[in-house]
């Protein structure tokens, strides 16, 4: 078994798919993995995939031409997933796709297709939840700052959402897990940054605690619940614990 190990970004995965597709080996004798997501196995030959823009663009062109731009869009969306299986799934999906043609998107019973759509759904589900669960706090400098720690790489989707919604505000949204930040200046465009200083990270994390309106918000959340109907289990299903540590109303 030959394993192509890609870095966790779209271009690297596409380069890996290119390498695997042009290797001449049988498809069942090779697979793709994301770097650092899986324990190495015996009797496997590991190949480190070099990120290569030309290879990625070649895959992009082929997919758009032979399949459709929508299929390529799906590949990008799935690449945001936090699942360790995604790179291999994308590879298998393309194999099936090149066999079946553009109608592949509707062939929901093919395992690679239903797998892809499942991952995409998970990405958008988490992004949708976070459009509600993100909390900003006012820093001393006047900037609104918030942090998240999502399973999937949804920062870019969230940035688009908040760019439209809070276009007149200056804000910063930090993905703590991937150390990426989206920064928006009032009335300007939004930029994605990789890595912010540790001190700034501390401030962003504590932003909700110093904010005057945080107390009013906590008051509201406490008052709006009907005691006779208390149902913590229901609350838990809708708002899992992993989101709560970033949310003002759960911070003491």
């Amino acid at each position, binding site marked *: 078994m030959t394993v192509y190990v890609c870095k966790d970004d779209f271009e690297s995965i596409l380069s890996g798919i290119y390498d695997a597709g042009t290797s001449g080996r049988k498809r069942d004798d090779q697979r793709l993995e994301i770097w650092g997501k899986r324990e190495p196995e015996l009797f496997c030959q590991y190949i480190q995939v070099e990120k290569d823009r030309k290879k990625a663009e070649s895959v992009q062109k082929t997919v758009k031409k032979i399949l459709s731009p929508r299929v390529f869009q799906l590949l990008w969306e799935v690449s945001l997933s936090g699942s360790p299986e995604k790179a291999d799934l994308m590879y298998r999906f393309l194999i099936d796709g090149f066999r079946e043609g553009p*109608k592949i998107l*509707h*062939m*929901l*019973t093919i*395992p690679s297709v*239903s797998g892809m759509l499942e991952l995409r759904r998970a990405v958008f589900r988490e992004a*949708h*939840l976070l*459009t*509600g*669960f*993100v*909390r*900003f*706090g*006012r820093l001393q400098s006047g900037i*609104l700052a*918030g942090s998240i720690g999502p399973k999937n790489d949804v920062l870019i989707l969230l940035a688009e959402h*908040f760019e*439209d*919604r*809070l*276009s*007149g*505000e200056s804000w910063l949204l930090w993905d703590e897990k991937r150390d990426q930040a989206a920064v928006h200046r*009032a*009335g300007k465009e939004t930029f994605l940054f990789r890595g912010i200083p540790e001190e700034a990270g501390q401030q962003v994390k504590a932003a909700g605690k110093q*904010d005057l*309106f945080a*107390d*009013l*918000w906590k*008051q*509201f*959340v406490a*008052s*709006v*619940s*009907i*005691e*006779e*109907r*208390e*149902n*913590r*289990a*229901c*609350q838990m*299903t*809708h*708002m899992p614990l992993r989101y709560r540590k970033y*949310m*003002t*109303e759960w911070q003491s």
Partner: protein
Amino acid sequence: MLIQEELSLQKKLEILTDAAKYDVACTSSGSERKGRKGTMGNTVPAGICHSFSADGRCISLLKILFTNQCIYDCRYCINRRSNDQIRTSFTPDEVCTLTMEFYRRNYIEGLFLSSGILGSPDYTMELICCTLEKLRTEHRFRGYIHVKAIPGAEPDLIRRAGFLADRMSINLELPTEEGLRTLAPGKSREKILLPMRQIQQGIRQDREELVPYRKAPAFVPAGQSTQIIVGATPESDYQMITAAETLYRGYGLKRVFYSAFVRVNEDRLLPTLPGGPPLLREHRLYQADWLLRYYGFRAEELLSEKRPNFNILLDPKCDWALRHLERFPVEVNRADYYTLLRVPGMGVRSARRVVEARRYGTLDFSDLKKLGVVLKRAVYFITCKGKTMFPVRMDQDGIAAALTGEERRRAWEISEGNAYRQMSLFDDFHIHASPSEEDRAASITGVM
């Protein structure tokens, strides 16, 4: 009555949130409005939940009353005139500040503004309109606004509010005239339905105007909703969903919300509920409501005068399917979308996926699972390529038992009367003679 003007904002928020929480509508859906450069706010069609309170309900909007003072004395309402409690009121500026600052921090999706009746309906509605105008023009807020139309207010005022809000609602509260008379003196069905009709016509007119590049704001773009209290009066489920159906079809409502009655006041005309609020009943009503709105069911298919209430153990769709076994099983590879929708365990999404996927190949049970069909329920009602998953006998008892579990089936049969009868030795063999002395002795010793 104690009217407090000089309370802190925090205290006011506490009181006026507490007073507003029995209104169940929390959705922020149905309206799509992009943001505008340099301002704040947009709306998304699906709505967004921002948090969940301890009772498991979604928090989407800043749900507050403008004031908890009220001239009415509705028995079920915590803000009734005769209740002795602190009364207070926000100022329009306070409401704007709270909304803007909460929205900025992404705490909320918008504002839900309701109110007790201060002075007169017109005066209250005027205050609400002023607040919304301030929010929309001065603060240029483009987020979601849900506002109550105060019954009895001037049509002009309601119209004004309609151009500022995304959704408007007037609570019907009790589905029958009689219920309203006993519990809400001062309100009548007519008085509630009048503004509802007005809003419906406003929405219709707004849609019919063909303005290609409209600058003017839309009238109640997210439609109107209402709320019915469940379990405060003896109305049956049948009456409730019939009322809901009338509202959907006759008044073009977007949503009817059901609110399990919580006894907040001591009043001899209110029912005591030792088991707490009727939550299961509320749940069944929501399930039925879904069937009315998305699954093409009609109220009289689900319930009737003779069977006026929902089954405790089975959801309305399973219950309906069990009473119509002659329509099942359906062949998944051939049945049309609306037939699939009626299969328990299939929803709007999974039915759509089935229709999409079968164009490219015949479906089997293992495929259905991938498409999101809940086989546990669906398996009794479908075939794939002409076969059921395992041999199923099409009889009500058997399927009911499998669906609910043997233990719970008994309770179900009790509520169903004779519909699906369990064989019982004594009933079926018409033995009426009382046991003899020997029988009694035998039953103790166990020797027959």
